[in-house]
């Protein structure tokens, strides 16, 4: 098994305009996802949702502090999971079920820093 991060990128306008029902449905989908990971033979190691990029503060190269996210994009990084999966196909199978109604997800292997740069 290996660790993969599932990074969620979504259009923040989707949530800014979402009704309480939609919000509730997305939360339910995330709760269901946590169970589906286990059903698929993976395991959920961690996961967090982030507040919108309007709340972000950036410090580039240890320099001055600025308002806003590190990179301005339409679909912003909004949350992540860390899962254990057998290989990339298994991780993709899991990631396909990860709710991201306002965008999509990126799967990235988690690096083992003791093995050196890959």
């Amino acid at each position, binding site marked *: 098994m290996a660790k993969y991060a599932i990074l969620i990128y979504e259009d923040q306008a989707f949530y800014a305009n979402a009704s309480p029902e939609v919000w509730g449905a997305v939360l339910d989908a995330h709760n269901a996802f946590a169970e589906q990971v286990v059903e698929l033979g993976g395991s959920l190691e961690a996961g967090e949702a982030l507040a919108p990029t309007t709340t972000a503060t950036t410090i580039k190269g240890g320099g001055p502090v600025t308002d806003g996210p590190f990179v301005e994009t339409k679909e912003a990084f909004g949350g992540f999971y860390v899962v254990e999966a057998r*290989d*990339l*196909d298994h991780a*993709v199978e899991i990631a396909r079920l990860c709710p991201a109604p306002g965008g999509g997800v990126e799967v*990235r*292997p988690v690096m083992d820093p003791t*093995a*050196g740069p*890959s």
Partner: protein
Amino acid sequence: MLAATVRVTGDLDVAEECAQEAYVSALRTWTRDGVPQRPGAWLTTAARNHAVDRSRREVTLRRKLPLLVEPATVDPHDPTDPDRPEAAVPDDRLRLVFTCCHPALAPEARVALTLRLVCGVPTPDVARAFLVPEPTMAARITRAKKKISAARIPYRVPGRAELPERLDSVLTAVHLLFSTGHTAGEGDALVRAELCDRALHLARTLAALLPEQAETRGLLGLLLLTDARRATRTDEQGRLLLLADQDRTRWDQRAVLEGLTVTAGALASGPPGRFTLQAAIAGVHAVAPSLERTDWPRVVHLYDRLLAVWDTPVVALNRAAAVAFADGPAAALPLLDELAGDPRLAGYPYLPATRADLLRRVGDAAGAAESYRRALELTANAAERAFLEQRLAEVGRAAEPAPPDPGEPRDAP
């Protein structure tokens, strides 16, 4: 041999080195004792032995080796079960093809990796095939191998549920390999025989190993029927000959017959996919006694079905070229006007080339000349340039009517 060695090493780089070591020891042993009865098996065993030696030596480093080999989920009905000894070697090769053509790799990297690792083509030759500098190709291959190990792209044939989608990526890579050899993007040799041969061999292997997947046979049929015309695609000077001007008696009849048989089998296996439909179109051309006596309504019908499963502007362009033969060039010109607005065809030389040919056939010499010039601006292949320049000179002179252009099916992206 590489595929068999990867199973021992679990690492592509190490497997390649072991394979090279095996060749070195073969040279030494065979010059001393003579060539063994089964040199291929000898080499595979030698490479595996080198691999086993290495992994013993490097047992402390094993932790760092990328783990390519995963224990397969056991399926008693799985025909690719690695424990079936008779299936071991081709199955290894199939796994390697699926690893090299994984959709998580960039498409150009998939074809390059397949050539390098499945076909054993040296990196400088792979670079030449794709007209990129050798360091660029070496970096591309290295990057893809690193992703295979870091992201743990599995070394296995996908399960039944995923297979059709994943197989498409494999078939596309093999088709692209063939197309690269069939019509070089630039340079002087129109046909690079070796790439075509590699692609045909791979298509044959896939059709033999996954016969229940009709599209493997569709691809094999398409390649056979296209390749049957290889000897007639250029004249003695290496200039491009279109379907109209090719000597049909010199088409490889054995390849045509095999291609038709394979394609018929694929068509009989259910709703045809895009490779099977393209093979069927190539089959109609292969049995036509001449360009004029081709069953053009059937070609148009097959293009309609192809558009239904694979809607690309290039397929639509080829359909328009077929309509020009079925219903006359005037009927096809409006279809080309529609396609001219598609940004995906901007810079595609066959669009102005087809337009030029239709205008020439309806007698608009000035319009044809303009479109031939536009096509020339976009074409880098020397053989195709020579053809277009000749046509431009002909319409420029407004000379006697030249034989019509065939609208030969083009390889679509």
